[in-house]
Structures are given as C-alpha cells and as structure tokens.
C-alpha cells in the first residue's frame, strides 16, 4: 500500500500518467499543489483511470487557492487528514 503524492499539473507534466500506470487497488493518490488541476480534466484520457482509484484525495487548501472545485467521488482533505493518511499507508512517494 503506497500513498502517492502528486504535485504537478497533468496538463503539462507526465507524473500523474506515470503514477497511474503503476498504482494498484490498495494504493492511494493525493492531488496537491498544481496537481489539483487534474480535477479540471474531464475531457482527458487520464481522468477516468484517476477517478476510478477508490482512494483518491485532493488537498482542500490547494483547491481553494486555485479557485476550482472537486467532484463528489474525490475525498477532499486538509493537512491533518493528509498527515494521518501518510501513516495509514506503508510508505509515501512524492511524484
């Protein structure tokens, strides 16, 4: 069980695609910093694979900072929940 922290916008960076190619059902993904723009990617090839990850989280502060919103199936969390999540998974990768 790996927790993947995504930090770059998938519109200009491959990290999200590269990460999605390697996750399993048990893994979790957190969208933070510019990676929260992924939530605007409904038309993109990576959007469905991303939202089909059951443990998909987006960081509330980063969403609000950028004036976007999250669809219902995405768990919106704050920093305290992020801290707790890193402990729930076995290890953490920052992409």
């Amino acid at each position, binding site marked *: *069980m*790996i927790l993947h922290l995504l930090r770059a916008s998938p519109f200009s960076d*491959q990290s999200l695609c*590269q990460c999605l*190619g*390697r*996750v*399993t059902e048990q893994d979790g993904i957190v969208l933070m910093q510019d990676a929260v723009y992924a939530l605007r990617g409904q038309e993109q090839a990576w959007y469905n694979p991303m939202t089909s990850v059951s443990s998909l989280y987006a960081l509330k502060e980063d969403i609000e900072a950028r004036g976007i919103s999250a669809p219902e199936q995405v768990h919106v969390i704050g920093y305290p929940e992020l801290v707790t999540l890193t402990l729930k998974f*076995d*290890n*953490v*990768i*920052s*992409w």
Partner: protein
Amino acid sequence: MTSKRIAIINRTAPHGHSQGQEALDMTLVAGSFGQDVGLFFLDDGVFQLLTGQKPDAVLRKNYSKTFAALEFYDIDTLVVCQQSLQARGLTQADLCIPVQVLAPDALREALASFNHIVSF
C-alpha cells in the same frame, strides 16, 4: 545505523537537471553508512544509465562512470522499469551497468517493500 530500508528513485534524465547527480550522491552516502538502499530508474530516469555519455561537452560532470562503483558501496538493489526502457527504444544492452529489469507490477511490489521512498 537504523534498519529502515530506503528506496531512491531516479525519474529525471541526466545533465539538463542536477537530480541524477544528487540522487547518486545520496546513494553513495547511504551505502557508506551501511543503509539498506535500493536504487530505482523510472521514466526518463533510465537515461541516467545510458552508455557512452560525454557530458564534458556541455560542461557537466560525467558521474555516469560512478555507477560502476556502486558494488563497492554495497548497493545491490538496482532496478530499472522495463516499460520505461521499452518506451525509449532501449534494452539492457544500452545500459552501463547490470541491473534488474522489472515489469510495472513487479517494480511496484519491489518499491512497496521499502520503509521510505525519495524521488529525484
């Protein structure tokens, strides 16, 4: 020294950025400290291991020669992503040191076995 195992991931190509060189520095120190360390090469990171690099021409240090010394630093876990190699038209024969080439599933399993993961 702590028994925690650390994986160091290379995801960036050499010379355009310093990630690879400083990932290697960290690997050498981890080895020198007797840390159980795995070195991984994913995505553009596989370019780190290409043979025949001559970065002197762009005024960068040729640290690719140092990979061959990893055996003296007790770095035994060297893993390359098969898919990343393939996508770049490369095979193991293009790489400067012998490595373990793993398919994505096996590679993820290997990563999951480490306590800590850092990426460059």
